[in-house]
């Protein structure tokens, strides 16, 4: 294949030289991931959209300060983390109400397609710090060291939060998925 996709650091270099289209392309690559990360943090689509917009504007303005273009993703998510928690602090009373776990029924006999909702509910029951480590590790694939940079805390803290979160999620979700798989296999036999 002759065509080689332009790498992020190349786009960053171009954007730093004022190439708006290069930055637009960078945004199009990352916007959905950033939006979904923010959505799970702030639990509101419009707020997540507004914060996403702020994140990419701030990233554009601060692009010259990015030391290592190869670490763009961690840097971008650190901005997203800071913007999200800044927004949550501003809206604290409202967010505390909105952020309370919904009274979803964690039915142990869920169909596989219903697991997504169960996961959302289970994530909503974690503390914000615990939930964020799951989002960064499980859904965004960051390494412990990168997470520590994004969250500005020691790796030991990252691991502690994430491991506690996984224990809680394991206790909630594993029985459901076992039931779902069992149900699926029973249907397959019929």
């Amino acid at each position, binding site marked *: 294949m002759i065509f080689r996709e332009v790498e992020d650091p190349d786009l960053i270099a171009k954007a730093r030289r004022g190439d708006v289209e290069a930055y637009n392309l960078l945004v199009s690559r990352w916007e959905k991931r950033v939006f979904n990360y923010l959505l799970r943090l702030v639990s509101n689509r419009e707020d997540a959209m507004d914060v*996403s917009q702020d994140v990419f504007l701030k990233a554009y303005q601060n692009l010259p300060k990015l030391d290592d273009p190869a670490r763009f993703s961690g840097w971008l998510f650190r901005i997203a983390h800071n913007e999200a928690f800044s927004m949550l602090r501003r809206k604290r009373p409202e967010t505390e109400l909105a952020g309370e776990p919904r009274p979803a029924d964690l039915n142990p006999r869920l169909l596989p397609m219903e697991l997504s909702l169960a*996961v*959302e509910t289970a994530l909503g029951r974690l503390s914000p710090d615990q939930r964020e480590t799951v989002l960064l590790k499980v859904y965004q694939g960051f390494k412990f060291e990168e997470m520590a940079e994004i969250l500005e805390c020691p790796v030991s803290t990252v691991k502690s939060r994430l491991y506690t979160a*996984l224990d809680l999620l*394991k206790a909630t979700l594993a029985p459901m998925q*076992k039931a779902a798989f069992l149900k699926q296999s029973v249907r397959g036999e019929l």
Partner: protein
Amino acid sequence: MSCISPETKPDWKAYVLRELGQDAHGEAEAHLAACSICHEEVATLRLTLDTLSTLREEEMPRRIAFVSDKVFEPR
């Protein structure tokens, strides 16, 4: 065989999250092959991660404004 020395047990969460170094990963694999208790623990952790992966990725209500400026205009 069962796991008789919990203090030397591998860090199974780091294992399933692919955070162990090459040597530690190899040692963990060897332990896992011989220990039914740890095998069960790892299976449950993997099941949890599989379940977490069922979370749907949401579509954005609209694109980031920057993007809509130029790149996606018809040529």
